């Protein structure tokens, strides 16, 4: 049985990465490719390789590479276990780790919400909203900076794209602009 308790972070992460790659790409090979690429049977172009040729080869290669990554991580963990463990002090606290996860997750959610609202409320309104949210999320609290960075700058960028580069960005609720 694998005992992860004595493994260092890198070995654990790489082992999991390898396992995920093997499972994911075998699933692509056995399930996604057969269902998403039509099989070509007895086509007049007898010598043409099937459309699934390259995706199948590449998928198998990644599965094999994933297996090798997992094996290397396991071997590395076994070797490390033979040497006395070293305390790693990275100076980080649990509090800021949690804050970092929250900030990253919030930025991700806000970015996707921004894109989903792009057509509905328009490029300008959504850009102003996301910029204000992200600037505040990064810890900025000076209202003048928030106004300039969150409202003035996106408006200028919007005008550059629409008026100078003639890019037809979605107008949404700001169709009068």
């Amino acid at each position, binding site marked *: 049985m694998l005992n992860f308790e004595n493994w260092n972070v890198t070995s654990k992460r790489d082992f999991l990465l390898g396992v995920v790659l093997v499972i994911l790409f075998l699933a692509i090979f056995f399930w996604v490719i057969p269902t998403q690429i039509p099989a070509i049977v007895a086509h007049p172009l007898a010598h043409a*390789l099937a459309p699934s040729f*390259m995706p199948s080869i590449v998928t198998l290669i*990644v599965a094999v590479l994933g297996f090798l990554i997992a094996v290397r991580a396991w071997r590395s963990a076994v070797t490390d276990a033979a040497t006395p463990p070293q305390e790693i002090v990275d100076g980080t606290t649990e509090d800021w780790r949690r804050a970092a996860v929250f900030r990253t997750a919030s930025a991700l959610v806000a*970015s996707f919400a921004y894109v989903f609202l792009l057509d509905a409320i328009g490029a300008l309104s959504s850009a102003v909203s996301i910029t204000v949210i992200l600037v505040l999320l990064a810890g900025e609290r000076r209202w003048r900076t928030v106004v300039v960075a969150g409202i003035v700058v996106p408006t200028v960028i919007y005008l550059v794209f629409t008026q100078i580069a003639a890019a037809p960005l979605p107008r949404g609720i700001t169709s009068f602009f």
Partner: protein
Amino acid sequence: MEHVLIGLKTFLTVQNILALTFGQAIGVVIGAIPGLTVTMAIALLLPFTFGMPALPAVLLLVGVYKAGIYAGSISAILIKAPGTPASACTVLDGWPMAQQGQARRAMDMALYASCVADFVSNLSLLLLAGLIASFALRFGPPEFFWLIAFALTVVTAVSGASLLKGLVSASLGVLLSTVGMDLVYGTPRLTFGVLELTGGLSFVPLLIGLFAVAEIFEFYGREPGKVERSRSAGARLKWEEFRNCLPTILRGSVIGVIIGAIPGTGPAIASFLSYAEAKRTSKRAANFGHGEIEGVAASESGNNGVAGATLIPLLALGIPGDVITAVMFGAFLIHGIDPGPTLFTRQADFVYALIWGIMLSSIGLLVLGRIAVSAFARTTTVPSHILMPIVLIFCVFGTYSINNSTFDVLIMLGAGVLGYVMSKVDMAAAPLLIGFVLGPIFEDNFRRSVLVARGDYTTFFQGPIVWVFIVLTALSLIFGLRKKNVPIEK
């Protein structure tokens, strides 16, 4: 010789020089904004040239094209968002240099390397157009296949600490490139019934997502209050530094010329090849990827070496080498210029005037580039927490503008998440881009070779060019794997 001198006289008019300079100014601005592509700028400017005489009209478009390729490096260095696909490789060392407070040195090197490469490329257009065009014509599918196989070995140079993960990244790029319509049978592949995917995944959203958007997500995961990047552009480039990098720049220029002359390749391939070759021969190879100025020189000389040479097949053979030259081909026809083998005899004065304009555009690029570098260097004073949301707005607007598609923006965000995850597991993003760019050409030429040879696989081992690239591929793999600073696994 007579035509060459008449060409110079024809070019030297105020209208021509103004058209070229105006085109270059637009190219610098467009190229520096992520998502706004040179192709889009040329397509937008084309109607404005209808009322102009042929020479200034074409010079304007050529100015946009050449300056645009250079300017992609500015945003690649300053905000990790390559303005053009050609500058994807410049991110690898340019962005770390900017983080270390050496943005000015990186931008100066990018400019000077671009100008030198541009000049070498233009010179080759003037002197070797016929010779290079006839060489490029000898490339059939098997030759292309091995050329791309050779180019794929670049992955060993940009994989970072783990070659295995680099290979996974490159394979993922190849797999993503297969999404869309199959080129031989015309059947959809891996589209999941989504209409927008039938045309395949666009390169620019993927590029911007993997680098710029991933960096934005990473920024929010860092400890608050820590200095994420230097807020100074730093010192200018020293003459000694430029001189030390000159062999790399010249080598990159030659690589760019050769790649540019072969239709269907492009500046991104040339810059990665030049980068890999520079890393292989450099004494500071271990520093590549961590802010090595020679890496910036190699990348920028590689992609700008393509700029003049890509016009060789267009002018000499009437074959557009990529999308941009295809749009320019249309511009030539609109203005009554018929590119092809007879162009040099039927419209020699026009061709040589154009070539003189292209030659002298290197000087214009130097002047405009210096102004641009000084102006854009000010962005380093903007704090990261203000800059990152603004970069996101540029990325979204730029990506949307390519096809007026929200789906492309979603792809960009998806690529951003992928790039973020890849960085968390120490997997380099550059191999994915290489796989994505080279994958379709690799697959297409492999399948076409088999088809043309009616299933005879010995076609891959016939002809001198094929063997040259087989040997180069083998040598590149051996050197890449043996290089001490590129261990197979940590």
